């Protein structure tokens, strides 16, 4: 089957890498509605996986299950060797190893940019304030806005806010980054500045799982694209396979609508 071919192609590129996120038969229900149907996927260390699909297809639900913002009801999720169960200690360990960037940024409006970034390192990692602050400034440098450190989120543009949100996640030195439609709430001219930061992050070897409609980004950066519909993973493949030679009719329909 072609899905297997595509998976094999990716596996060769990432051969010998550790498994970072393993999902096996994950089910999720909202009442009677089944949002995720036996979702199974493995994401390797250093891999950039893009998840796309029409709205309501379960991509956000899936990514939110991985750090337990949503609770999955069936199947197993293992992140970096830690199984996600009802054990609070496991949940906390996974959350401090997995960074997440939201569509609506969700910066803390009552704290300055610097305090937003240092909050978790100080209160979760118990870092000295001076060390946390110098790291925060280095991260702001990395995302290209070192001069905004003392401002409040409300004083920044959408693109700048999203870059602060990325820096805030990176401050926890995560092993995996999850992006839940990071550019969907942005004006077109700001999308590029956020995507550039994400590309730089991908090239640096970060394991990333990205829910997005930015097909240019997917084509350029992704190691693998997963197409979801109706709570299922319909098609998996390299960007080359996905854009030039999709096998499933639903994938073809989706691509014809957005490209």
């Amino acid at each position, binding site marked *: 089957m072609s899905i297997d071919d595509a998976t094999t192609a990716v596996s060769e590129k990432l051969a010998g890498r550790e498994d970072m996120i393993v999902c096996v038969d994950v089910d999720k229900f909202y009442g009677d509605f089944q949002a995720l149907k036996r979702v199974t996927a493995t994401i390797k260390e250093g891999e950039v996986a893009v998840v796309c699909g029409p709205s309501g297809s379960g991509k956000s639900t899936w990514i939110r299950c991985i*750090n337990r*913002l949503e609770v999955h009801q069936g199947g197993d999720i293992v992140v970096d060797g830690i199984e996600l169960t009802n054990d609070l200690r496991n949940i*906390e360990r996974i*959350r*401090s190893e*997995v*960074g*997440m960037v*939201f569509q*609506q940024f*969700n*910066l*803390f*409006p*009552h704290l300055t940019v610097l305090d937003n970034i240092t*909050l*978790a390192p*100080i*209160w*979760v*990692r*118990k*870092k*000295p*304030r*001076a*060390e946390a602050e110098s790291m925060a400034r280095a991260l702001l440098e990395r995302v290209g806005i070192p001069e905004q450190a003392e*401002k*409040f989120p*409300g*004083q920044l543009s959408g693109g700048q806010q999203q870059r602060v949100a990325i820096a*805030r*996640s990176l401050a*926890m030195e995560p092993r995996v980054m999850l992006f839940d439609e990071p550019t969907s709430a942005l004006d077109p001219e700001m999308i590029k500045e956020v995507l550039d930061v994400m590309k730089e992050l991908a090239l640096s070897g970060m394991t990333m799982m990205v829910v997005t409609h930015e097909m240019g980004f997917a084509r350029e950066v992704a190691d693998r694209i997963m197409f979801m519909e109706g709570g299922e993973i319909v098609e998996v493949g390299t960007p080359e396979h996905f854009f030039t030679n999709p096998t499933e009719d639903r994938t073809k329909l989706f691509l014809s609508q957005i490209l």
Partner: protein
Amino acid sequence: MATNSPPSIDHSRPPLYRDVTVVKWVVQIAALALTLGALWFLADQAGDNLRASNVPTDYDFLSVNPGIDLSSGIDTDPDTGGRALWVGMVNTLRMAVAGIFVATILGVIVGLARLSNNWLLQKIGTVFVETLRNVPLLVQILFYGAVFASLDRVTKDVGPINGWLHLSNKGLSLPRVHIADGFYQWLIVMCIGIFIANEFRKRRIRQQDATGEESYPLLSAFAVLTFVAAVGWFIHPIFGFVGEIFGALSSFVSGIPQTVLQIAIGVLCVGSSALWIRSFLNSRRTPAGLARLTDDDYFRMIFAAVGGILGAIFFLILWPGLSSWMINSLSDLFNVLSNKFGDGRTGRPIDVDLPNIVQTGKFPNYGPSGLNFSIGFAAVFFGVVFYTAAFIAEIVRGGILAVPKGQSEAAAALGLKRATALRRVIIPQAARVMLPPLGNQYLNLTKNTSLAIAVGYSDIVQVGQTVYNQTGKTLPVVSIWMLFYLSCSLSISVIVNFFNVRMRIVER
């Protein structure tokens, strides 16, 4: 540069009736004149009518013995009408402060209970809120009054009470903790202790910032303070010498000549307005020099100058007695303070008296050695506390729900524990939403204490009504009520606004 402007621009001034600046000034002055005129007219009319109908408007009753007994307060048999009203004010303030304190705690607990995932807690919270806020406060106060009145009577055994507290239809009597001989000397030890503890707290915070280890700054500062308080309990007599300092200050102040102080007050008035104008001009100064002042800026500066000069005239000419009053009262204050120290004040700083029962009149009652709460106090207290707590619970619930769900999700995704997320992320944002309506509830609570008249608790309204029934001075008493409630409400507003400004979120 003028040559660059297009020829069509007309630099001539418009006629006066179309000039924005002129119109603005004229309207301002006209409005001021109209307001003052209307007030003067109303006051004049009211004065004429009152004189014609013989309604008394004087305040003589304040210094006359009203011949009334009060049910509770710092002085149940006041010498003058003024003293009686003062006792009423203290009772109202006690009720308001205690009520605000307890209602806030109870309200926060109930509000959080309504948000909890625990079914039972949630339902209890809902029943509490829906019952209490839908029954009129007056009915609730009467209900509590009736319940407490059905308690046992005080037994006829006069003397100390066997035990720590006594409950009867006269109220509740508890051991009274009060200031004793060594208190003021001990207070100095405590001031030093607070300073040390604060320094200690700052050091622990610096330590926490440097190493990242949790150092519990508040808790350890509190431990230091407790230690100092305990040591001070025994060593406080060493501060007996402070009395002599206050004595010297007292004689120094009484030696200041009146004219010197008089002139100083005048200079202070004019000088402070001049300083204000200078700092105002500085604040309008841009890096490029003095910015253009608007009309409003001129208004402010003129008002400040006129205010300063009028103040100086007022204190120098119309109220020359102020300086001698200030000198005398300051000297008296230092005298009183000097008497609180030294002279064998080696006893305990704080003492406790147990309640007792005495019989001065026909019926036995609680004596002054215990801390007594009358039935009236309890009825009003429970009434306003439960009633206001129901509303505060809704405010707390609304405030927390008003923080977007994304905030707690972002905090969770960063690995913050639920308690840390609440303290650092959710509550600071919820407080911003909660403060203004919370201030309203505090104002309501303070004003609602006037329902005390229904159960005979001696608050300012009940005392005032008794006073004007005895003296017939209705209008003066009402004016005192209004002034009192106005100053209470304004004080609460100022405090709430202070926190409101501090919580503001910066945008743009």
